[in-house]
C-alpha cells in the first residue's frame, strides 16, 4: 500500500522541498505532494506535514499567522479523525499556536539561531512519528532554530499523559543541561496530543535521512518518516 501525504507550503517555508525529496525518493510506500496552504484539501490525503522555515516571516510570533491559514482548518479535520498531523520546527511552532499541541516555543535562551547536530532521546514510541523507534533510543539529528525553547505551564499533565515524545540528551542518553541546546523546559524537544496522531518537534529529520548528509553517516531521520507510514498502515488495516 502507498500512503499519500501532503507537505504544506506557506510563504516563507524553506524545508518543504527537502521534505518532499526524502518522502518521494528515500522513504518507501509513500507519495508526497507539495501543496500551497490556501489550496490544501484534506480529503485527498492520509496525513499532513507542516515543514520547517519562517512562515510569514515569523511576524508577530513564529507560527501565529500560519496558524490562521485555511490549511490549518483542513488539518484540524485530520487531527480529529486520527490521521497524522506532523510539525517539524516551524511546523511545531504553528501547531502550538493553532492549539493542536499545548505550550509554546520561545526565543532560545542564548538568543542565538542555533544550527547543529544534537542527540535526541525517545521517550514515547507509540506516536505517529516514533513507532519505528525504541524507548531510550538516542538519535543523531540536526536542529536549526531561534525560537525552540519549549515552555508550558502544565508540565505535570504532559508527563502524566505520556505526551513528551523526545528530549535533548547526551550521546549516552543523559538529560543534562549541556545537552539542552535552547533552554527548553526539562529538555523537551517534541510532544504529542493525547491521541498521539499529532506530533511536533524542533529537529529536522529531512536533513538526517541520507548518509551523505550525516557527519557519522547515520540515517536516523528516516525513522521518523517510516513511523508516519507505519502509523497510517496500522490505522487503515
Amino acid at each position, binding site marked *: 500500500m502507498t500512503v499519500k501525504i501532503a507537505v504544506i507550503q506557506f510563504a516563507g517555508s524553506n524545508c518543504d522541498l527537502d521534505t518532499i525529496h526524502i518522502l518521494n525518493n528515500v522513504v518507501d510506500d509513500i507519495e508526497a505532494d507539495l501543496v500551497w496552504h490556501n489550496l490544501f484539501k484534506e480529503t485527498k490525503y492520509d496525513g499532513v506535514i507542516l515543514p520547517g522555515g519562517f512562515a510569514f516571516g515569523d511576524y508577530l510570533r513564529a507560527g501565529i499567522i500560519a496558524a*490562521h491559514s485555511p490549511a490549518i482548518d483542513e488539518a484540524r479535520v485530520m487531527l480529529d479523525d486520527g490521521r497524522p498531523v506532523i510539525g517539524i520546527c516551524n511546523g511545531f511552532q504553528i501547531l*502550538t499556536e493553532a492549539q493542536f499541541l499545548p505550550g509554546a516555543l*520561545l526565543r532560545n535562551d*542564548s538568543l542565538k539561531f542555533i544550527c547543529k547536530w544534537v542527540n535526541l532521546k525517545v521517550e514515547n514510541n507509540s506516536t505517529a512519528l516514533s513507532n519505528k523507534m525504541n524507548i531510550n533510543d538516542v538519535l543523531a539529528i540536526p536542529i536549526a532554530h531561534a525560537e525552540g525553547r519549549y*515552555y508550558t505551564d502544565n508540565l505535570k499533565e504532559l508527563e502524566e499523559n505520556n505526551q513528551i515524545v523526545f528530549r535533548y540528551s547526551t550521546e549516552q542518553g543523559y538529560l543534562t543541561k549541556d545537552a539542552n541546546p535552547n533552554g527548553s523546559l526539562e529538555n523537551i524537544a517534541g510532544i504529542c496530543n493525547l491521541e498521539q496522531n499529532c506530533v511536533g518537534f524542533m529537529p529536522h529529520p529531512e536533513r538526517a535521512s541520507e548518509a551523505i548528509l550525516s557527519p557519522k553517516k547515520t540515517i536516523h531521520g528516516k525513522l521518523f518518516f517510516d513511523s508516519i507510514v507505519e502509523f497510517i498502515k496500522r490505522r487503515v488495516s
Partner: protein
Amino acid sequence: MDRQEFQVEITLMNKPAARDPVGETIQKDLLAKKGYDIVFNVRSGQFLQINLKAADENEAKKIVEKMCNDLRIFNPVTQNLTILKVSKS
C-alpha cells in the same frame, strides 16, 4: 451613530514565569557593564499601535481586547496583554 478614529496602544510581555533573555541581556551585558548597576531588572516585549474606528473609547478598547483574545495576538500560555493607552487619533 458616528464612528470616530481611535488609537489603542498595547504591549505583549512574557509572563514573569517565562524567562526573558532579551531583557536579561540588556540589563546584564549592557547596562551593568556600562556602570548602570542601579538597574537590576529589564523585561522586553512587543508594542503595537492600532488605529481603528469605534463609537467611543470604551468600545475601541473592547474591540481590541476581543480581537487580541480571539486571534491570539498574544499567546496566553506565555504572555500578558496590557492596554497602555486609548486616545482619539
